[in-house]
């Protein structure tokens, strides 16, 4: 089994080079996909019989909600690896996941509200999914605030990772208690972005957009992780040669 190569991937210099190399590719491919996805989502896909064109917001709401959820799980996993093997790579990954995840959660919330306005008349509707997104935003804020308020970077990494793990474990519990609470209050609202069994020609732009958002997340993540890793490893020889090496485009 190629455990060796996986372990080698964890070594900071290799990971740093990987991030620097892959980042432009992620960016370009995601921009292309977004262009295709947006065009097909906004113009090509047929309007929904019930909601008319307002349903097109789904192409912006579902991908960002998906990425925000994925980012937190990714952050939790990186936190676990970081705490067990005390590796700077994992801590940098966890730290850079937080702001990106928080921005996608904010995006999901705003598009959710813009979706709610035409659909139910009021921007903020205590729908189970929107409320869970809001709580997820607070979990991200808690991680970032904790990380910022501890001066020593190594201690901040480890304490915040602990909070990320506890948060990740609690996400399903919070989600299902909100869903249970929501079913009590109003009959489950027929909302398009519960499992949408929408026609295929509406579906494939959504798939493209989800893929595009994930690639975009990967691009931002590798850029930020490279930055965080460089700062954490600034004493080492390899980062200094790398920095001096590419003096031109830094």
């Amino acid at each position, binding site marked *: 089994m190629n455990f060796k190569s996986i372990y080698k991937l964890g070594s900071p210099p290799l990971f740093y080079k990987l991030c620097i190399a892959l980042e432009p590719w992620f960016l370009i491919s995601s921009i292309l996909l977004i262009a295709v996805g947006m065009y097909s989502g906004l113009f090509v896909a047929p309007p929904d019989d019930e909601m008319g064109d307002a349903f097109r917001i789904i192409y912006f709401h579902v991908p960002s909600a998906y990425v925000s959820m994925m980012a937190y799980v990714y952050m939790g996993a990186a936190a676990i690896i970081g705490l067990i093997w005390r590796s700077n790579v994992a801590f940098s990954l966890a730290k850079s996941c937080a702001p990106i995840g928080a921005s996608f959660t904010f995006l999901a919330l705003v598009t959710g509200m813009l979706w709610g306005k035409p659909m139910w008349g009021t921007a903020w509707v205590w729908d189970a999914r929107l409320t869970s997104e809001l709580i997820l935003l607070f979990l991200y804020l808690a991680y970032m605030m904790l990380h910022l308020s501890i*001066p*020593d*970077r*190594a201690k901040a990494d480890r304490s915040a990772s602990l909070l990320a793990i506890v948060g990740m474990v609690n996400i399903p519990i919070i989600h299902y208690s909100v869903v249970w609470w929501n079913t009590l209050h109003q009959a489950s609202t027929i909302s398009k972005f519960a499992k949408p069994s929408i026609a295929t020609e509406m579906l494939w732009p959504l798939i493209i957009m989800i893929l595009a958002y994930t690639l975009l997340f990967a691009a931002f993540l590798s850029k930020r992780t490279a930055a965080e890793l460089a700062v954490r490893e*600034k*004493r080492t020889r390899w980062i200094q040669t790398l920095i001096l090496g590419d003096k031109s485009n830094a």
Partner: protein
Amino acid sequence: MKQEDRRSVTHHNLQSNFLELYRSDHLIFSNISFELSEGQHLLISGANGTGKTSLLRVICGLTIPTDGTVMWDELATNNVDCTYHHHLAYLGHKNALISELTAKENLEYSLDRHRSVMSTNRILEAFDLNKYLDQYAEKLSNGQMRKVALTRILLSDKTLWILDEPLANIDPPGKQFLLTEMQAHLERGGMLITTSNVNNETLKSNLEINLDNP
């Protein structure tokens, strides 16, 4: 704990190799290696702020070093079946006295008190703490608090004592008694690590680590 009994006959030893510590990217100390066996005293000297306290905290396992390991009886201290903390008594700058409790309660409630009442009185007599026993810890003076903390260390029959500037702000008779107690501890086969920046009347040490030269 069968393994423990068989070992207690043989000598314990504390060993550290190539310890190194960075605090948010600036070097505190590096490349510290020593081997301490029973009956020996290690003195860590150096000016203020050269990392003596950090080195002590690394040795006793409070701070995790950036590099290097601390070994007790050939087992790394963070190993699960290492009995390091069974034999360790640490006293840092903070006296670990709870201010709401009286001095006597502080001594009673410390986790590792096994010694008999007789030896307790002997130490309290020497430090003349008897009349302050019922005072709340916060009302005691610095020196008295230090003495109560030191009494707790002297009472705990642990093999390894790690003391951070034990002789600081203690009056001469107390200092004298402490020196004799430390000497008796070494003769009993105990181990001792102390730091001091005023290198006058410290205990003669078999080993010394000076943190002055960077």
